[in-house]
C-alpha cells in the first residue's frame, strides 16, 4: 500500500533540473508532496487531486496521472535551498489518511 518513490537519492549542481516519481499499486484520490530538512518536520509543497491536474509552486511543479496511478515532482533550475528529502503521500479513498513513500534525498551542490 505504500507508494514507491524513485530515485532514492539524487545529487544536483545548482541550476540543474530533477524529476522525482511516485507510483502506487492502488487507485488514488490525491497525492501530496512534502519536503523535509534534516531534523525538522516535513513541510507541505502541494496537493494534486484526482483529475490529472498539474500544479506549480515557484520552480517546483507536479503532475498526477490517475490512470497510471503516478505522480511526478519537477524541480527546475534547482537552488541550494531545495536540498532535503522529498516525500509523496497518497490518499486512497478521500479519507484524509496519508501513506507516505520512503522518500527521495535530494542534494544540491554549489
Amino acid at each position, binding site marked *: 500500500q505504500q507508494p514507491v518513490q524513485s530515485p532514492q537519492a539524487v545529487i544536483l549542481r545548482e541550476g540543474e533540473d530533477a524529476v522525482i516519481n511516485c507510483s502506487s499499486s492502488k487507485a488514488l484520490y490525491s497525492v501530496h508532496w512534502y519536503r523535509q530538512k534534516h531534523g*525538522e518536520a*516535513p513541510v*507541505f509543497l502541494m496537493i494534486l487531486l484526482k483529475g490529472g491536474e498539474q500544479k506549480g509552486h515557484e520552480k517546483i511543479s507536479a503532475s498526477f496521472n490517475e490512470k497510471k496511478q503516478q505522480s511526478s515532482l519537477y524541480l527546475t533550475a534547482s537552488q541550494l535551498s531545495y536540498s532535503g528529502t522529498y*516525500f509523496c*503521500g497518497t490518499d486512497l479513498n478521500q479519507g*484524509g*489518511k*496519508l501513506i*507516505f513513500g*520512503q522518500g527521495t534525498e535530494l542534494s544540491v551542490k554549489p
Partner: protein
Amino acid sequence: SQTIHQWPATLVQPVGSPLSLECTVEGTSNPNLYWYRQAAGRGLQLLFYSVGIGQISSEVPQNLSASRPQDRQFILSSKKLLLSDSGFYLCAWSPGTSKSGKLFFGSGTQLSVL
C-alpha cells in the same frame, strides 16, 4: 491562526519504561490528528489516525497506543518501551472539513530508547 504544539523535543528513556508524548492543536475545531514515526534515515510511517474524540485508527500493530481525550489533544503512549521504539515521532493535523487536506506537522520528538 492554527498552531500545533508537540513535546518534549527530545527524550531518552530506558527499555521497559513508559512513554507519553502529547500534541495539541490551537485555532481550529475537529481536526484530523495523526501520529507518524520516522526511523533514522527512513520514511514516515503512519501509526495512528483520529477523526474525532475517542476515535482512533491503529495502522500498525505495535507496542504503542494513542488516545484523544479532547478535540485538539492527541497522546501517544506505551506501557513498556522497546529498543525498536526509537525514532522521530511527528504529530500532525489536517482540517476535519476537508476530505484531503494538507498536513501540518509538529516539530517532532526525537525518542531514544537505551
